[in-house]
Every structure is written in C-alpha cells, then in structure tokens.
C-alpha cells in the first residue's frame, strides 16, 4: 500500500490552507497513484487537527505529539517526515511550498536520498509515474519534470491547487510516532507582524504599487484600496530599492512569488522581473497611464489613466460595493 504522504503545517492551533491544498491534491492523485493518503502532523496537542485533514482527504494521520516539538525546528521535523516516508514507502511526498516547507523539504529529501521538485503548479500521472509542471526563470519558462525512483517528492505553490470539498463524515486512522527531538538550530523568539495584516504569499487579493505612485507619501492610496478590498499590499522592485516600502512587500523575481485570485497592479509598468512574481495570478488588473506599458500584456482588465484619479474613485466604489453586499 504505497500511497502518498503529505506534510501538514499548522500555526496558532489551525491548519494552514496550503496544507489542506496539499492533502486535497494528494486525494485527487491517489485515484491514479493508488494507496492511502497519509498526513504528517508535528507538534504538541495537535491530534485534534486530524479530523480536518481527514475531511479533505487524508486516510491516515501520523501524529508526533511532543512538548519538545512546540516550535518549528528543521532537524526534528525533517526527521519526523523522513521517518514516516521511510516506513510508508509512498510513491509521492507532497509538502506545501511555504516558509516552513521550503526549509524542511530539502533537508528531508537529502535524508531520504529522494529527488525533490520545488514550487510545482500542477501534476499529472503518466504510466503510474508522477509528472510535475513548475515555473523556472521566474515564470519565463515552464519545465515538465519527472523523477527516477521513489519517493517522488515535491513542494506545492500555495494558492494554486484547489481545495477538495470538505466532508466531515470522512474519518482517518490516527497513529502516533516518536522522534529524536534534539536540534542544534532553534527558534529563540518570534516577532509577529501587526495583527490583521494580510500576508502577501497567502493573500487572495493583492493591491501592488509601483513607481507611478511618485513617492512614498502616496503609498497610502495603495493601502486604502487594499483595505477596501480586504487585500494585502505589494510593491514593485523599483519602489523597494528606492526605499519607499520594506522589501518584504516586494513581488517579483528577487521578491515574493504570489498567486492570488485577484492582483491589482497600480502604476507598475510590468518589468519582466515583476511579471515573474505574479503572472500565475488568476485575474490581473492593470492601472497605468501608459497604454503601451508591458503590464497590459498580462492583464485581464486594463484601465488607462492617472492612478491619482483612479485609486480614490476605485477605493470609494469598492467600499460602496462591499457595503451593499453585506
């Protein structure tokens, strides 16, 4: 019974959405790869999350419940994942491409001697083998990748794989494991960003600003529209390098790669390295005064005009729209 193993990440007592996306994709792939879907859950007191993993498609949940595993640490978490994979001998291992998954998966892969394909955006099964599609050169090219041998290990770009419909009647078999919890690198403090702020890489809607805003003093227009839409704020490399906003907001090749359902680019010309970070967004709106700006080539909807005139009107209209909706 080889099946598929997924890694389930949680924070503040809740499963993170990319983990549910990974379980959902494993469920869909299990139709052709055969065998059970096993989710690995690490941390103290997390057994209660197994039911939710089951509702999205996990047949088994392997829990490492230990007070020493409260904070994420690469070494014991990688050991735990590798241990389950070594025992279950799955055909595939799916890990979300989040900060944690990005840190954990390569270490676990090297431990297992497994091939790892990063940041996958789709899978197919051909002749019983997995085939992954992933962007390279920041989206300027797409590679189709295959594995030699098992397990076929992959990380999944968040916000790309749809969730299965949760079915609360589905149950999973819960097993418990133990692992050496020692770590030479450990978290000693966490500095959380301001509460209520929407994280860029997980946001469903992003409003981004570029050089067309003319100066940092005008960036409140981006924030205003983002607030009205319940969106996260992003920025182009030009304005990050100019010091208007923190680099954490940068979308593009040397910044974050995002895949929201709606991306609103305001005063962003659409340099190739910016497009690289957002071109897998489902719907792209471009607002720019230059009708020849390259951003319009990737946009779904284009508004040619002055951001200083359009943004206040659009913010007002968005507020009215949401007020009418609720």
């Amino acid at each position, binding site marked *: 019974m080889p099946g598929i193993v997924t890694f389930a990440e949680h924070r503040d007592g809740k499963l993170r959405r990319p983990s549910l996306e990974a379980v959902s994709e494993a469920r869909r792939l299990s139709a052709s790869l055969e065998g059970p879907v096993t989710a690995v859950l690490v941390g103290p007191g997390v057994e209660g999350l197994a039911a939710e993993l089951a509702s999205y498609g996990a047949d088994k949940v392997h829990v490492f419940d230990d007070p020493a595993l409260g904070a994420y640490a690469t*070494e014991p978490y*990688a050991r735990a994942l590798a241990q389950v994979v070594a025992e279950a001998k799955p055909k595939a291992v799916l890990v979300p491409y989040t*900060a*944690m998954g*990005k840190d*954990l*998966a390569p*270490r676990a892969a*090297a431990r297992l001697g497994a*091939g*790892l*394909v*990063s*940041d996958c955006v789709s899978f197919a099964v051909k002749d019983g083998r997995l085939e992954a599609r992933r962007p*390279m*050169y*920041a*989206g*300027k*090219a*797409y590679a*189709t*990748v*295959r*594995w*030699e*041998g098992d397990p076929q290990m992959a990380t999944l770009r968040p916000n790309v794989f749809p969730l299965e419909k949760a079915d609360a009647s589905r149950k999973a078999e819960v097993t418990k494991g133990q692992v050496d919890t020692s770590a*030479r*690198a*450990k978290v*000693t*403090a*966490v*500095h*959380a960003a301001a509460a209520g702020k929407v*994280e860029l*890489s997980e946001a469903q*809607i992003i409003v981004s600003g570029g050089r067309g805003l003319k100066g940092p003093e005008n960036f409140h227009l981006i924030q205003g529209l983002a607030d009205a839409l319940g969106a996260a704020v992003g920025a182009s490399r030009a304005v990050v390098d100019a010091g208007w906003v*923190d680099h*954490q907001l940068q979308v593009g090749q*040397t910044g974050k790669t995002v895949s929201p359902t*709606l991306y609103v680019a305001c005063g962003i010309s659409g340099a*190739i*390295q910016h497009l690289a970070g957002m071109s897998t967004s*489902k719907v792209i*709106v471009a607002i720019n005064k230059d009708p020849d700006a390259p951003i319009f*080539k*990737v946009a*779904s*909807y*284009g*508004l040619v*005009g002055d951001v200083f005139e*359009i943004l206040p*009107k*659009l913010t*007002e*209209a*968005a507020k009215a*729209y949401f007020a009418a909706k609720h």
Partner: protein
Amino acid sequence: MKIVVCVKQVPDTETRIRIADGKVVESDVNWIVSPYDEFALEEALKIKEKKGGEVVLLSLGPERVVSALRSGLAMGADSAVHLKDPKFDAADTLGIAHALAAAVKTLSPDLVLAGQQGVGGDNSQIPGMLAEILDWPQVTVAVKVEVEDGKAVVEREIEGAHETWETTLPAVVSAQKGLNEPRYASLKGIMAAKKKMIETKDAAALALPAEALSPKTRIVAMEQPAARGAVKMIEGDPETQSRELLRLLHEEAKVI
C-alpha cells in the same frame, strides 16, 4: 573564522529566456552571480572584517563559472574552488549538494553561506540538502546574521513574522534580500582578483561515487508559458472605469 560562500552563476534577471529543443538557449544569456549569493558573500565579507579569517568561494559549473568567481574575488573573497567535470552536467540538486558537501568537507569552514535560492532554477534546495549531507544545522532565509563564539544568531523571515534562531557552528545559513547591500568591486579589487587562486576540482578529486551524482529528477520538457487571454480595456472617466471594473470582477471574473 573560515567561511565558504556558495556561488551560482545564473542568467541575468532581465535576460529574455529563449527555448529550443526543450532547453534554454545559452548563447542568448548574459550570466551573473545569483543576487542572493551576493547577499551571502557580502555577509561573509562583513563577518571577516569584524572577526578576521578567510572567505572561500565555491561554485559548480562549466568553464564560464570562472567569471562569476572572479567577480566574487573582486568583491573581496580570498580564494575560490571551482567544481568542474562533465559528470556534473546531468546532476540534479541532490547531486550538486553532494558535490558541494564533499568540497566543503575538505575546506572545513566554521560557516557556509549561500543564497536562499539560485535565481533561474528557483529551487531553494541546496542549503538544506547541503546541511543534511554535512550533518550540520541550517538556518534559511536569513535577514540578519550575528556570529559569536561558536554560535550564530540569525533572524529569518517567515509568513507575517520574523524569527530569531540560534545555531551552533559549523552551520549552513542561507541569505535573503534585506540581509545587506552588496558592495561593488573596486578597481583595486578587480586587479587583485586576477592574482587570486581558483582551484579546480573534478568528481574524482572529490572522491564522489557515481551514485551520488545520479539524478533523481529530470527535466523532460521546457516551454514558454502559455499566453494569457487578451486584456479587456475599460474606458471612461475614473468613476465609470471604477464602477465597471468592480462589476466585471464580480459578474464576469467572479473574484469578488
């Protein structure tokens, strides 16, 4: 303090990527040092300025990689090791990590710094794999690094927060944008770089078994991204444009 900095030569981020026969056409490409590796090198040079010691560059790739090593030497690294062998050509990330690990072992540094990802391949795998193969701790995506006796305190970025990590040394630390501002090579640095040593090693010199290099993943096809549908332009004054956009996002695109 001895620091090894892993450097990857990558296509310039502004390079147009052309694909023929399922491969990137290399003759079109302008090669640079991966920007994240420049943050790693800058940090290594800053640590050396404070603590003394030695900075050694390590890169794997064909002959062209020498120019990336020269530019790193011009920034201030002391020497370089170039892993070059046709046997590396088919290696995937795990194979490359094995080769780098073998070289790191012979150098026995206190710290390995590398970019958190190589621009282009965008795998973000080498630092973690290298650390596991060496059986060293790792801290990835670092935006701040302080080295104290036998340990490093590293701030790393996660979604919506920063974490402070403490690690014993030796360790592998990967660099994120925001860590520092890489210096430009001075003319004096460029001249000095010409005299610095680049040692070349092949798979045999690293005593790498063929198994370590056999790829576990293989790119079977590469293509340009599919073009997105045509843009729908929304005309009118700003107020009309705004209302029409919201209507389309709701009724047609169904995203709000």
